[in-house]
């Protein structure tokens, strides 16, 4: 296997894994894979309708739906992608018996397919809000794209590290699920960073999802003040777990497969 061979092999295997995941997820429900878009879409709409009943004026802008979507979308994309990536070895465990399939293929396939689906949901929700409510917007597309790229990187980083840790230390999985439960409230979805008391600001600043939500709102609202955002911090928070995760997975994934 030369390097050139590997360049041709990886896209081929990743493509095959993506097709397989599309064919097997939602295989039993009528409509099939269209649910991969409809399910998160429906969830976000339900929540948005409930909250809009008692939170009429958002902290920024005048459209609650837009404010809520700009927070919940990055959050739900992160939750979905990091979960999918961290489960990718157990999801593709049987396939790793083929010598041509590596754990990296399994992770890349899950990340790629699910991020495509999540970005599609993002596009539909934001597009729908703009069409229905027609809010006055001067969006900064490059900031929005930056936010999406950061979510992708963060979920990949946390996902790979957790993929290793979940498999090696099953107890850690329960602890992680309890510890990250308040994330929905602590990520600045229902409020803005500026509306927080200074004490909370100094603590929640370290939440990378809150930072990414800030980047997103900075891109969507021209009047949003994003001076507190540190893209470097989010990058560090993604790249360090990513390197650790990839290092430990490449060393231990065969141990995970047969001796755990």
């Amino acid at each position: 296997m030369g390097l050139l061979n590997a360049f041709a092999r990886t896209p081929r295997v990743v493509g095959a894994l993506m097709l397989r995941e599309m064919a097997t997820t939602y295989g039993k429900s009528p409509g099939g894979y269209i649910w991969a878009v409809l399910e998160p879409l429906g969830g976000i709409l339900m929540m948005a309708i409930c909250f809009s009943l008692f939170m009429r004026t958002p902290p920024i802008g005048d459209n609650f739906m837009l404010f809520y979507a700009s927070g919940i979308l990055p959050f739900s994309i992160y939750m979905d992608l990091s979960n999918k990536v961290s489960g990718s070895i157990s999801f593709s465990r049987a396939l790793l018996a083929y010598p041509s399939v590596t754990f990296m293929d399994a992770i890349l396939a899950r990340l790629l397919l699910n991020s495509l689906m999540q970005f599609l949901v993002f596009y539909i929700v934001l597009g729908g809000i703009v069409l229905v409510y027609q809010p006055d917007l001067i969006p900064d597309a490059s900031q929005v794209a930056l936010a999406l790229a950061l979510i992708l990187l963060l979920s990949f980083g946390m996902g790979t590290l957790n993929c290793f840790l979940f498999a090696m230390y099953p107890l850690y999985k329960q602890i992680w699920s309890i510890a990250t439960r308040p994330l929905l409230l602590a990520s600045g979805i229902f409020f803005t960073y500026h509306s927080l008391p200074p004490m909370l600001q100094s603590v929640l600043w370290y939440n990378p999802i809150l930072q990414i939500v800030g980047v997103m709102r900075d891109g969507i609202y021209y009047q949003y003040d994003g001076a507190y955002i540190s893209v470097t911090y989010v990058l560090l928070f993604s790249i360090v777990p990513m390197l650790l995760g990839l290092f430990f997975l490449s060393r231990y994934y065969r141990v995970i497969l047969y001796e755990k």
Partner: protein
Amino acid sequence: MLARFRASPPPPEEPVAPDPGPPRPAGPGSVRFVSVSKSYRTGFRQRKYVIRDCSVLFPAGRKVALLGHNGSGKSTMMRLISGAQDYDSGEIICNGAMSWPIGFAGAFHPEMTGAQNARFVARVHGIDTDAMVDFVQDFSELGDYLDMPFRTYSSGMRARLAFGVSMGVPFDCYLVDEVTSVGDKRFREKCAETFHTRLSRASAIMATHSLTQVKTMCDMAAVLHAGTLTLYDSVEEGLEVHKANQMEASR
């Protein structure tokens, strides 16, 4: 005007591929162990060694029977070679394309049809998907069942699909872990024949308890006993050592 066509030179002769001769021992299809150790923890400060500081070369083009009594670690050896399991130290160098254990059906998805599963394996290995499905259709004799979900298959049908898919991919080295005989006598013969043609230029490592299989298919033997792996150039010699080991183990 026709003269121009008549004057065209005779078609060039079909180029004849030069006979590559016997494969080099360390060429594609060979597997080299460089002081490999593999052990399992069996208790406090106790380890059972499957192999200890083992250096061997499974030569290219040879069909090696892996002999060893129950629990000596044949299946572990297979997984080490196919790269699915980790070892303690040393290095295993696989040359060329290694197969997964022949007849392995564990990676077939129950909700996908037999044809879809075959196509997936073809895609992963860079083979034309339609050619693969045609081959499996022709070989496995599953007929219309090929378009039914895999979960509806009987165990015989599963084995036939798995063997057909394994035979549809050309490898340099085939790994065989306990071939269970599939189907009736005619189908078994067909399997053996196809496997033989596949093996004509490739190498193979087989773990099996069937003496007839060892004698008809293999031309070398490797005996795994008490943490050492020894290669014998003739199957008879290997079988004798294996028998002696078994006597010792049963005593």
